[in-house]
């Protein structure tokens, strides 16, 4: 299929929908957002990911208009939003608590925002019905919020915030209150609805799996700054820092001294008397500079004998095995005391597995399996 990849951020002619320009937000002495600049494009599903207190919620509340930046500018469709109150923004928000009006029915909740627009009655009725269909809530239109389930409430909140057809929809931990199974289903539903309506979504979450699943781009945040913005795959495969690598998924970090061996080849000397690990990177490191290899457990092979021709191989002892059903994680202690996690798929039955506790094994990985990081 000749579908072009959706990547407006790589097109220099594309105009961003949202622009943060050197935005700083302070609450008293506390700096929630620290001189942050970022563009977000139309039809994007943009995820703000980070631990609590990293400033992701503040960014969202500034977009909604509940907070104003202390310094800097926020532009939506080229317009400076500084003095635009929340009720005059073409932005709607889906609240973490859903914030459904308990005294109004599902129908009235969805119609609430439309009534404020003074929409004619027949048009309003059509719009509400359309939203109810989109979120599969038609049966529950007359119920009050406390008479429906958590998943249904979540969909009412979504329908209510989409009803006004905002340019931008903000979702604050939208699936946080749902259990795991429902959450996974709803993630796909959200993506589906985003595609159907063509609305730009900005989602705030602390759940990295959720961000990776739904988003076109993920921004990993820490202490009021964006550490890295990239597509989920890129964030996972090519993190730009130990912080990002560590935050997203499971990772082994091996610290050592870098030594340049070719144009993009480096040796990382991680322990005296052991052969350095070899890796490739376009990152320019000086000889002797501290470097890190970040390598995902599933990219490390476990074998009984030293594999022929492996670029990186190290011998160690299994100290722990975590059986996860479809795969097992081996915790292998290598010389110097570092414990490396390696994952192997359980293609055989348990009784016929090759390794057990205290076995000596070889760990190996390819030249490009790990990322070299300088910080």
């Amino acid at each position, binding site marked *: 299929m000749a579908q072009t990849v959706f990547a407006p951020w790589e097109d220099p002619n594309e105009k961003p929908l949202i622009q943060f320009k050197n935005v700083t937000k302070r609450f008293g002495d506390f700096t929630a957002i620290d001189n942050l600049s970022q563009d977000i494009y139309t039809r994007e599903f943009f995820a703000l990911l980070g631990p609590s207190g990293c400033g992701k919620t503040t960014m969202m509340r500034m977009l909604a208009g509940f907070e104003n930046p202390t310094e800097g500018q926020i532009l939506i469709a080229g317009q400076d939003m500084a003095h635009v109150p929340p009720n005059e923004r073409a932005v709607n928000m889906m609240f973490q608590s859903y914030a459904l009006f308990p005294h109004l029915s599902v129908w009235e909740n969805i119609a609430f925002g439309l009534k*404020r627009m003074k929409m004619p009655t027949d048009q309003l009725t059509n719009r509400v019905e359309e939203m109810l269909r989109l979120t599969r809530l038609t049966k529950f239109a007359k*119920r009050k919020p406390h*008479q429906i389930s958590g998943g249904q409430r979540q969909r009412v909140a979504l329908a209510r915030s989409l009803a006004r057809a905002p340019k931008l929809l903000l979702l604050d931990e939208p699936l946080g209150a749902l259990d795991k199974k429902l959450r996974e289903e709803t993630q796909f539903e959200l993506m589906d609805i985003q595609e159907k309506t063509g609305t730009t979504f900005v989602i705030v979450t602390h759940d990295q799996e959720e961000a990776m699943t739904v988003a076109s781009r993920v921004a990993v945040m820490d202490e009021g700054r964006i550490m890295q913005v990239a597509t989920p795959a890129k964030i996972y495969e090519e993190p730009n820092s130990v912080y990002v690598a560590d935050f997203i998924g499971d990772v082994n970090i091996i610290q050592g001294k870098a030594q340049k061996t070719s144009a993009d080849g480096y040796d990382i000397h991680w322990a005296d008397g052991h052969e350095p690990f070899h890796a490739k990177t376009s990152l320019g490191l000086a000889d002797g500079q501290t470097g890190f290899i970040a390598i995902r457990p599933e990219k490390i092979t476990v074998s009984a004998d030293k594999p022929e021709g492996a670029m990186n191989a190290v011998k160690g002892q299994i100290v722990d095995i975590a059986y996860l059903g479809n795969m097992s994680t081996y915790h292998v202690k290598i010389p110097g005391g570092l414990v490396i996690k390696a994952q192997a798929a359980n293609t055989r039955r348990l009784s016929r597995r090759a390794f057990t506790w205290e076995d000596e094994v070889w760990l190996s990985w390819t030249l490009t399996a790990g990322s070299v990081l300088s910080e």
Partner: protein
Amino acid sequence: MRRFTWFNATALTLGFAFLYLPMLILVIYSFNASKLVTVWAGFSTKWYGELINNDAFLDAAWVTVQVGVVSSTFATVLGTMAAYVLVRVGRFPGRTLFSGMIYAPLVMPEVITGLSLLLLFIGIGLDRGIFTIILAHTTFSMCYVSVVVSSRLVSFDKSLEEAALDLGCSPFTAFRLVTLPIIAPAVISGWLLAFTLSLDDLVIASFTAGPSATTLPIKIFSAVRLGVSPEINALSTIMIGIVAVGVITASIVSKRAAVKQQQDEQAAARAT
């Protein structure tokens, strides 16, 4: 594990007997045929008849109800505003004084509140009457209203108001369409509390009432100073009856609502 022992049962029985026996005696003896209040001389409703024909009491009752309705309505409006300021408006100059002025009247002895208001009314040359009682009652009961309403506002999910703003409401519309309907039960109980306090007040009313307006408590007080009278017993019985019916109805209504909500939630849980 909680254990409900004979000791607990005795304590509850004696405690509630202590609380209710005096009122029960009052009610029973309001139907006494004799003027001697402690000697039972047969059942009669004649004191109720005399009460109905006692214009002084009826006038005082009418004044009391007027004062109660008007002052508690003002107090509810002012108290709700004050509660909103206390809970929602962040810092402003004089905030400490403001919250002090809200809480101080709650612990101020009535004699002092009454005295100080009277001296104010005299100082500015305001003739004492219904109007001054209303001013006085509004002032102290608005503080009670604001305590009741602010405790509800504290637990109010602020994101509901933000959602209303987000969906296009101005701050005032958001208050009218979302906040007010949700905190309405607290506002109503604030009004009822203010109304009861106003009906009940003797001391502040005595200071601020003029010769043109006498409230029921003032009337009752001057009557009972002379001792027990069967007419006052009858009047007390009527007042106790109104309160009992009101409170019991209110508690049944709120219990029904709670049960219904619980059933709805259970139904919703099953629906998923």
